[in-house]
C-alpha cells in the first residue's frame, strides 16, 4: 500500500528486534475470540472516486447561513502548504510560531470586524459559537434564562436547545415584529433580572438588519448580556459592527471557505477584554522568548479542558484552525478596500434583484427594512411548487421560509452575492414570472 513506508524485509527485521515471531503476537492483549479473522467488508482499494448528481450548471439564490463568495486561489495555495496543513495544535510554541502568529492575526481581524476587544482561535461554526456565547453569558451572570430572537438562524437555535437541555438553561424565544425585526415590546416584557442573555442575529434570518442600540439598552438594564450572532460576515464590510454587544458569535464561512455541503467552516467568539477568562476555546497571545524576541504562545489555558477537566469553560479541543487560517489569508487578500467593495457589490446586486423581482406580478417584498444581501419576498403561491418549476430552468430558487416558520408560508428568502451576475438575476426574474403565470 502506497501510504505505508515499510518493505516486507524491514517488517521482519523489526519483528525480530522486538523479539516476537509474528505480528499476531503484538495483539495478544486482545482476547483471542475478539480478534477479527476475516477481512473487513469495506469497498476498495480504489484510487479515485467521483460524486455524481450535484448542482453543477445551476444558478443558486440560496444563502441562509452559507454564502457563495469569490475566493482567491492564493488562499488555497497557502492552506495546502504542508507546514500548515499537517501541523498539530501549536502546543510546542518554538516550532509552531507560524500557526501561532497566524491565529494572533486571525484574532486581530475578528476584533476589527466585530468591534470587539478579544476573539478566540475559532469554534466549530456559527451555531456552536452562538451556543458557547450563551454558556459564557450564563457563567458571567450566574443566571439561567435565555431570550433568543426567533429571527436567529433556526439551526443555531436548535443547537442551543440541544446544549441547554441538560445544563439547566431555559431558552425562550422572542417573536419578530411585522417589519421583521425583533419585537422590542415582547423582549422588554420577557426581560427580568433572571435573564443571562438576549440573543439576536444581524442581518437576521430574514435578511433584515437589526438596530443594536435599543436592544442592548434593554438587555443591559436588566443586567443581561447582549449577544449578537453574525451569519454573513461580509456584511461587516459595510454595516456597522455590533459594538454594543457583550459577546459576538460569528460564522466565518463567508471569508474564503467553500459551501462544502455545510462544513467545515469557522465559528468565532469575540467579546470584551474583561470577560476573557470566561471565554471558551484557544487563544494565542504575544510574549517574548528568553532572548527578548517577540513570539506567540497558546495562553490562558487554565480555562481549557486539558488543564481544568470538569471545571473547564468548554469541552472544545479540536477547533477549525485551518478554516480560520483560510479566513485570515482571504481577508488579508481582500484587505480594507476589497472587503468594502465586496460588501458594496452584495448590497447593490441584492437591491437590484429586489427591484427586478418586485416587477414580477404577484411578488411582494415582505419586510420593508434595511437589508444587506438577503431579503424576503412573498409569492402568490407555494414556494416549493415555484421552486420545482425553477429547477427545470436550472435555477435553485430561494429558501422556502414556511418550513421553519409556519406563519411565513409563501415567503422565500432570496440571497444574491457578488458572484451572481445581472444576467442571472434577470433570468431568475423572468423564470419566476413564467412560473407564476402557469395555471396551478
Amino acid at each position: 500500500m502506497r501510504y505505508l513506508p515499510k518493505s516486507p524485509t524491514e517488517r521482519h527485521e523489526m519483528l525480530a528486534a522486538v523479539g516476537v515471531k509474528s505480528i499476531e503476537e503484538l495483539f495478544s492483549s486482545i482476547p483471542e475470540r475478539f480478534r477479527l479473522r476475516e477481512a473487513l467488508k469495506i469497498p476498495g482499494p480504489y484510487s479515485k472516486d467521483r460524486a455524481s448528481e450535484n448542482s453543477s450548471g445551476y444558478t443558486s439564490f440560496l444563502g441562509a447561513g452559507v454564502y457563495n463568495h469569490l475566493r482567491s486561489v492564493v488562499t488555497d495555495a497557502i492552506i495546502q502548504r504542508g507546514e500548515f496543513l499537517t501541523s498539530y495544535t501549536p502546543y510546542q510554541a518554538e516550532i509552531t510560531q507560524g500557526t501561532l502568529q497566524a491565529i494572533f492575526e486571525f484574532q486581530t481581524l475578528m476584533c476589527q470586524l466585530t468591534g470587539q476587544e478579544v476573539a478566540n482561535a475559532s469554534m466549530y461554526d456559527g451555531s456552536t459559537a452562538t451556543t458557547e456565547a450563551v454558556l459564557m453569558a450564563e457563567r458571567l451572570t450566574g443566571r439561567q434564562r435565555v431570550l433568543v430572537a426567533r429571527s436567529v438562524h433556526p439551526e443555531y437555535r436548535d443547537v442551543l436547545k440541544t446544549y441547554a437541555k441538560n445544563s439547566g438553561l431555559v431558552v425562550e424565544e422572542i417573536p419578530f415584529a411585522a417589519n421583521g425585526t425583533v419585537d422590542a415590546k415582547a423582549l422588554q416584557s420577557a426581560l427580568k433580572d433572571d435573564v443571562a442573555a438576549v440573543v439576536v442575529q444581524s442581518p437576521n434570518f430574514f435578511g433584515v438588519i437589526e438596530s443594536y442600540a435599543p436592544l442592548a439598552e434593554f438587555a443591559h438594564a436588566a443586567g443581561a448580556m447582549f449577544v449578537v450572532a453574525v451569519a454573513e460576515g461580509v456584511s461587516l464590510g459595510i454595516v456597522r459592527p455590533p459594538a454594543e454587544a457583550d459577546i459576538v458569535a460569528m460564522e466565518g464561512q463567508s471569508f474564503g471557505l467553500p459551501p462544502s455541503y455545510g462544513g467545515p467552516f469557522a465559528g468565532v467568539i469575540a467579546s470584551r477584554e474583561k470577560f476573557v477568562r470566561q471565554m471558551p476555546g484557544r487563544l494565542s497571545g504575544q510574549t517574548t522568548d528568553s532572548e527578548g524576541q517577540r513570539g506567540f504562545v497558546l495562553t490562558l489555558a487554565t480555562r481549557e479542558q486539558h488543564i481544568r477537566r470538569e471545571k473547564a469553560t468548554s469541552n472544545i479541543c479540536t477547533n477549525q484552525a485551518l478554516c480560520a487560517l483560510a479566513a485570515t489569508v482571504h481577508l488579508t487578500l481582500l484587505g480594507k478596500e476589497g472587503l468594502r467593495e465586496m460588501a458594496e457589490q452584495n448590497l447593490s446586486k441584492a437591491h437590484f434583484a429586489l427591484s427586478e423581482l418586485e416587477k414580477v406580478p404577484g411578488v411582494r417584498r415582505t419586510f420593508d427594512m434595511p437589508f444587506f444581501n438577503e431579503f424576503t419576498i412573498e409569492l402568490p403561491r407555494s414556494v416549493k411548487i415555484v421552486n420545482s418549476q425553477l429547477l427545470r430552468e436550472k435555477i435553485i430558487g430561494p429558501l422556502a421560509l414556511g418550513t421553519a416558520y409556519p406563519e411565513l408560508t409563501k415567503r422565500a428568502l432570496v440571497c444574491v452575492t457578488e458572484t451572481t451576475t445581472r444576467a442571472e438575476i434577470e433570468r431568475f426574474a423572468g423564470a419566476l414570472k413564467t412560473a407564476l403565470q402557469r395555471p396551478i
Partner: protein
Amino acid sequence: MNTKIKKASRHTNQSEGLIFEKSSPGKRAFELPPLDVPAADPAKALGANHRRAGIEGFPEVSEIEVLRHFTRLSTWNYAIDLGMYPLGSCTMKYNPRVNEFVARLDGIATEHPYQPQELSQGCLKIMRLLEQCLLEMTGMDAITLQPAAGAQGELTGLLLIRAFLEKQGNPRKKVLIPDSAHGTNPATAVIAGYEVENIRSESHGQIDVEKLRHLVTGEVAALMITNPSTLGIFEQRIPEIAQILHSKGALLYMDGANMNALAGVTRPGDLGVDVMHLNLHKTFSTPHGGGGPGAGPVAMKKILEPFRPVPILVEKEGGRLVLEPVRPDSIGRVKAFAGNFGVLVRALAYILAYGPGVRQATEDAVLNANYIRKRLEGVFELPYSLPSMHEVVFSDAIQKKNGVSTMDIAKRLIDYGFHPYTTAFPLIVPGAMMIEPTESESKEECDLFIDAMKAIAEEAATKPEIVKTAPHTTRVRRLDEVGAARKPVLRWKPATSRSEAAD
C-alpha cells in the same frame, strides 16, 4: 552542533512581522470583477445608522506580500510533511494529498446544504458509504456523522445515553471516568448534565474491575473508557466491564481516539461497547491543520438509534437518499447543516484507498510502537510493563535524577529534528513521555528517532544543561508563558491610535 544529530541541520529562516505592520493605504491583493448592476448608495440603502465607515487597522497589502507573509510563517512550523511527529494520543499520520483533491472537486466543495435533495444525491451517497464503512469497522448498528470533532462526539454520545435512560424513567446522576482519560471526557460529562466520578487505575494501568463492581450503582449512567487507554494498553477485561455496567442498567462509552490500534483487528461493538466516537482527524488521516477541523462521528448499538441527532440519513425505495428532519426521540441537533462534510469526504477517500487492507496500517502502527519501546527500554523508565499497542509511555524517572524533565527532553528533540512526543499526559504517569509513531514512519525514521532519544539520554547524564536549556536551534527560544498569561496581549493594535490603545 552535536555530531549525533543526523536528521536536521541549521538553515536560515526569514524574519517577518505582523501583516498589520506591513500595511500601507491603497494596496490591495484582490480585484473584483466590475459591478454589472447600478451601484446602490450605502448611506441610502442601509441608513446612516447602520452604515459603517472603513475598518480601522484592516490590512492593505499586495498579493505577493500576502503570499510571502504566510509562506514565511509556514516555514516556522514543524509538520508531518517534514518528519516524524510522535505526539502520543494525536495519531499524526500521513495526510494523503488525493484526499485534499477530492474534497475540492466541483460537486463536493460547491454544494449548498439547502439545495434540493435530488441535486444532493452525490453528497448523500458519500455520507452513506462512509457510515457503512465506519459501522463495519466498529461493529456497531447505527451512526451519526454530525459532530464536528471528538469532544462534540463525546457530548453527542453522552446525550444519547441520557436520552435512552430518561426514556426508561431516570437519566441517573453520574458518569465514571478513569484518571487516565482525556480532559475532554470530564468536561463533556458536565455539559451533558452529569457529575463526574474519577476512578483510579490499578497498579498495571488497567481499570480496577473489582473496584468498578462497587462503584457501579443505580446512580451511574455510564463509564467513559479509552481503549487502548492513554497508556497505550488494551483494556483486557473490557467485555467484563461492559457486563458489570449492563447488569446495573448503565452503558459503556468508548473514546475512540485510539482506534488506530484496533482498525481491522478487533471491533469495539463486539467487545460490548454501547456507543463510541471516532476522530476522523486521527485514525482516518484528515489533516490536523494546526488544530482542526476534525469530525467526530458517533457509532452506537441499536438501543440508542432512536435518539440520534437530526437530520437522519435515510435510504428510500430505489436507493434515493434523504435527510429526514424529524424524529420524536432525537436529542436534537449538535451542529448546523450536515456536519463537517469536507472532512467526511477526506476520511472516506482514505478508507477507500486502503479497503480491507487498512489492517496492515494498524499492524504497522503497533509494530512501530513496539520497536521503539524495545529499543528504548532501559534508556528510559517504562512505568507500566503491559504490552503496548499503538503507543508507548515512558517516564523521565531516570533523567529526573539529574534534574532533566520530560519537557526538557521533548524540547531537546526539536534540536534533533523531531517534533516532541506528548509530555503533559497521561496524568497518572509523573513525567510522562508518550510516544505514538503511527504507521506512516519508515524503519529509517524510527531508527533516527531512537538514535536521537538515546543521544539525549546520554546528554542528560553527562551534560544536562544543554538539555535543560533546549531548544537551541529554533527561531525563538523558550517563551515566557507566565508573562503571556499575566498580561494577555491577544490582538495587534496600531501604535499611533490613542483611542484604541486606551481601551
